[in-house]
């Protein structure tokens, strides 16, 4: 391993590669900040550029873009409540309320330090645990994945405040229903398209996330303009506040970061799980671990609530490289794009990558450390400037949010229908938000819908239509029992107790 680390350092510390990490982090942050343009778009844009370099340099550049875009996405989640990527949705739960309380600078600093710590720690885990973790992830079968997704969706119930469990579950079902629109992945049979060609490929994730977060947030602000309770929030939005993190907050982060980085990394390793589930699970776990006083602050600007998903999503980014590099299975949509690029270089990822291209494997791991440091150096001094977005008056900010949302969809599809659909979903979401129907469960369900169906399909086909697959394997049964415990506990807390 020492030899591998030295090979990696030699490759990663060349002037060209350091420059690539810096450029990747910078452009990734800028692109990730724009709602609608997440890491996938950013990396896809980089692919033609990377073909001019050797594979290691190309992948180092893309990894830098990936981290930068995830951090940039967190920034727009905190400042605008407009997460550009699903992995930063959980960041907005406490980041945005903090910004509304005039602590935007602090929220961004907590996010920056948590991302740095999460990414760095998970790079260390990756260094030592990659070979054995690839074996663990290989042992996961379709029933385990299906059960894990059910657990992930049910865990959202943990994010809902009292009395919202059923509302959250309704939104989960709605998200899965929206994900089922379009062609069936195996048979290509169209479903719920009503003979509309525009729906054949399904509804885009960016469309749904822009509609339910960015657009509906903008419409809600306008709708509640005269509401005396929201007026105070709008005034406080113009205050940036200090970026200094005090001792008490640091103490909270010291406890949150290690456990969230572990959960983020482990979830990231599982093919298909990625930063989204990691950040949601870390948030849910943190909420259940902290004391009652801190628990009350969740959703209202909790330091733990912000630090946990931020640590986990960056840790998951590093974790998602494990199945991609060792198994050739992408851990997330973004690493799927990177896998495509790697194949384009003529490099076949898999267990033999260590031996055939050690410089690629180890230089990526080493560049992760360098990338994290650069990201921190780049983002902390820029926080006061980034947060200036908050100083933009509402009369300008609202149309600009709508503009970024519509542009995000327009450049993806060049289609009027998608814009109408987005406006329609945004109107419904705005109305539902008025009555406290939570949107994050809908988003997570929408993202997981396809994977969930795929794993259920495999499980049912293997068990010849029998649902026994849910308790045949110990691992599946354990995940399922955890899910049942969560459901029973929430029903007890929200209904029976009253």
């Amino acid at each position: 391993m020492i030899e591998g680390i030295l090979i990696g350092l030699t490759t990663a510390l060349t002037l060209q590669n350091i420059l690539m990490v810096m450029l990747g982090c910078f452009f990734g942050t800028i692109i990730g900040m724009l709602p609608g343009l997440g890491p996938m778009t950013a990396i896809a844009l980089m692919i033609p550029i990377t073909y001019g370099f050797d594979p290691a340099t190309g992948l180092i550049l893309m990894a830098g873009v990936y981290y930068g875009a995830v951090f940039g996405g967190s920034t727009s989640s905190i400042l605008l409540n407009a997460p550009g990527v699903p992995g930063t949705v959980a960041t907005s739960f406490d980041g945005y309320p903090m910004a509304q309380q005039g602590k935007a600078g602090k929220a961004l600093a907590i996010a920056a330090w948590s991302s740095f710590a999460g990414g760095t720690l998970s790079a260390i885990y990756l260094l030592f645990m990659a070979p054995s973790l690839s074996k663990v992830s290989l042992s996961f079968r379709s029933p385990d994945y299906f059960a894990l997704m059910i657990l992930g969706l049910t865990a959202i119930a943990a994010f809902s405040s009292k009395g919202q469990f059923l509302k959250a579950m309704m939104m989960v079902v709605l998200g899965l229903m929206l994900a089922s629109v379009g062609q069936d992945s195996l048979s290509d049979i169209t479903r719920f398209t009503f003979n509309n060609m525009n729906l054949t490929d399904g509804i885009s994730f960016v469309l749904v996330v822009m509609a339910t977060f960015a657009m509906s947030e903008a419409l809600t602000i306008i709708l509640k303009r005269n509401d005396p309770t929201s007026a105070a929030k709008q005034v406080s939005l113009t205050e940036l506040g200090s970026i200094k993190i005090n001792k008490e907050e640091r103490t909270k982060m010291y406890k949150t970061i290690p456990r969230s980085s572990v959960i983020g990394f482990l979830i990231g390793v599982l093919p298909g799980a990625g930063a989204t589930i990691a950040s949601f699970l870390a948030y849910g776990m943190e909420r259940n671990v902290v004391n009652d006083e801190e628990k009350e602050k969740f959703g209202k600007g909790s330091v733990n609530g912000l630090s946990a998903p931020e640590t986990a999503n960056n840790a998951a980014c590093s974790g998602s490289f494990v199945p991609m590099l060792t198994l050739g299975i992408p851990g997330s949509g973004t690493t799927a794009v990177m896998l495509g690029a790697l194949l384009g270089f003529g490099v076949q990822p898999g267990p033999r990558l260590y031996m055939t291209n050690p410089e690629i494997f180890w230089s990526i791991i080493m560049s992760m450390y360098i990338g994290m440091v650069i990201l921190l150096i780049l983002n902390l001094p820029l926080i006061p400037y980034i947060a200036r977005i908050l100083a933009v008056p509402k009369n300008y900010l609202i149309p600009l949010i709508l503009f970024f949302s519509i542009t995000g969809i327009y450049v993806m599809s060049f289609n009027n229908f998608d814009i109408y659909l987005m406006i329609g979903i945004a109107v419904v979401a705005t109305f539902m938000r008025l009555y406290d129907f939570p949107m994050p469960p809908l988003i997570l369900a929408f993202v997981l819908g396809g994977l969930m169906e795929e794993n259920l399909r495999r499980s049912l086909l293997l068990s010849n239509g029998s649902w026994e697959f849910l308790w045949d394997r110990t691992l599946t049964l354990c995940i399922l029992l955890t899910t049942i415990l969560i459901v029973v506990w929430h029903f007890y807390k929200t209904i029976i107790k009253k």
Partner: protein
Amino acid sequence: MNINTTKVISLLFFIFSAFYLYTAYQIQVFAFDENAPFNARTFPIYLGYAGLFFSGLKLILPDPNTIKVQHKTLEYKKTVILIVIAIIYGATILKVGYFLTTSLFLFSSYYFLGERRWVLMFLLSFPFVAAFMYLLHGVLDIYLRDPFLQSIGVMG
């Protein structure tokens, strides 16, 4: 009569789930797939029943945290105007082009939201969109269709 809007939304969701379930049963699958353990309609059927189950529970169980929205304080007029402007923007963007429609969308949105600083409104619409367009089209090489700019020879 005081109607609980959360219950009304739940009822609408119940009806929607019933319609979804009905449509799920209508999905045409291949003949050889009809009796397979899993086909294109299996997952949607489960989802339809799940929707009926959760919305049904929400309907019949008591709602201890009734949300009361003060409709009188809500700014419906400006919200509807903004939605209408966005729809018009969506309807014209392909035919007229990105630059003009986006600039007009921003300018009119600022105006209807009560802004009257004309110079700032102009700067944050036409030049802003031009700069953003340059970033997307010129720097990031993302294609933007613009018949208007093409007709006056600004764009190739």
